[in-house]
């Protein structure tokens, strides 16, 4: 297990989210309201919340323009995360991918890839593996959080949502589950893979997982996986959003 700290996130493969309305009002929310909104909108579907926070860890940022929270926890997995909730209604989030620092998880995904139908991996050129199921889960959580956020603030315009995987050049999609393998090598050729959408509020609130599926498809395509099945994505979403 590599010993990363909170300040290492920006140098490692990470999941980044930004959610904002289209109209800027620096004082849309009070600091107290920001605290309440994040805690009431958190998504808890797999033993961890998106975003993670505890009241004691929330601090006010520069000139009281935002609240922020940082998490550095070593449990079964290493969890590094930081987020900000601005008084404008904008929320930004960054998390190191949980599979990055864990050598045993990386080894498991490598073995799984090696045993798959695809025999032409050049492991020497790979930096590591990103769990494709983890991508589905994280993006689904982010869009579910966004659907709650736009109602809690509330937003008075569509939501500008960006989800991205950064620091992933030469990282491949992988699976920790030996029963679930990918047929081909899907490798990121760019450092940052991003999906950005202006989501009308009614569409986002009515179907956050559908919006998430669009984003997941877009990011997988940027890995070179051109035709990920919507049914497959929906099946994994239903594993945690019962």
């Amino acid at each position, binding site marked *: 297990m590599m010993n990363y700290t909170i300040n290492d996130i920006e140098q490692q493969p990470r999941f980044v989210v930004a959610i*904002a309305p*289209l109209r800027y009002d*620096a004082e849309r929310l009070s600091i107290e309201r920001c605290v309440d909104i994040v805690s009431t909108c958190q998504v808890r579907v797999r033993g961890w919340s998106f975003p993670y926070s505890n009241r004691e860890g929330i601090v006010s940022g*520069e000139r009281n323009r935002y609240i922020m929270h940082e998490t550095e926890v070593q449990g079964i997995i290493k969890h590094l995360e930081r987020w900000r909730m601005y008084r*404008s209604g*904008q929320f930004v989030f*960054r998390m190191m991918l949980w599979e990055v620092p864990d050598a045993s998880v990386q080894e498991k995904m490598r073995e799984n890839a090696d045993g798959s139908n695809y025999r032409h991996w050049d492991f020497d050129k790979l930096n590591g593996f990103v769990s494709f199921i983890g991508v589905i889960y994280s993006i689904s959580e982010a869009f579910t959080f966004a659907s709650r956020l736009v109602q809690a603030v509330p937003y008075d315009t569509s939501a500008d949502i960006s989800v991205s995987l950064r620091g992933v050049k030469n990282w491949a999609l992988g699976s920790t589950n030996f029963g679930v393998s990918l047929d081909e090598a899907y490798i990121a050729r760019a450092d940052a893979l991003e999906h950005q959408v202006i989501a009308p509020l009614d569409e986002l609130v009515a179907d956050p997982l559908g919006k998430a599926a669009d984003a997941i498809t877009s990011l997988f395509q940027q890995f070179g996986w051109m035709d990920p099945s919507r049914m497959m994505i929906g099946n994994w979403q239903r594993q945690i959003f019962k």
Partner: protein
Amino acid sequence: MIIGVGERNGQLDLGGILPDHESGYTQDNVMALVNRHARPAVFLALRLIEFEGRRFVGIEVQPFDRTPIICGVATPNEAGNAILRVGDIVARTRDRVATSRVSDANLIAEIIEVAAEKRAQEIITTAQRIGLRLPDNDRTLFENERQAFGDFG
């Protein structure tokens, strides 16, 4: 627009274009004919289309660039009556698939608004090209706000 499709009693007749007529539909011929009357010039693209053994000519009309296209020279029909008069604007109608002279006040207002937006965009682009700094828009304000967080350029 598709040349070679007729209409009889509300039914489309996909008769196709006559072989003798087809050779007249070249990019140069059509642009010359249309732009004899249009001010400013219209941008068109012609495509030959085959469908169920018949041939059609598709004419793709590009949206206007800066100002709405206005009739600058009247277009008489065979009887010598003006189909389009100087100053007319034609557009797709809302109620049926057709193109006709604009007489709907709301549609005229919409065309003027589109033209104003295009001109405004042109002014902004020119201003940025010569180094003028415009007031930040909302998106820029959000970008500035999150810049210190990192990862957002």
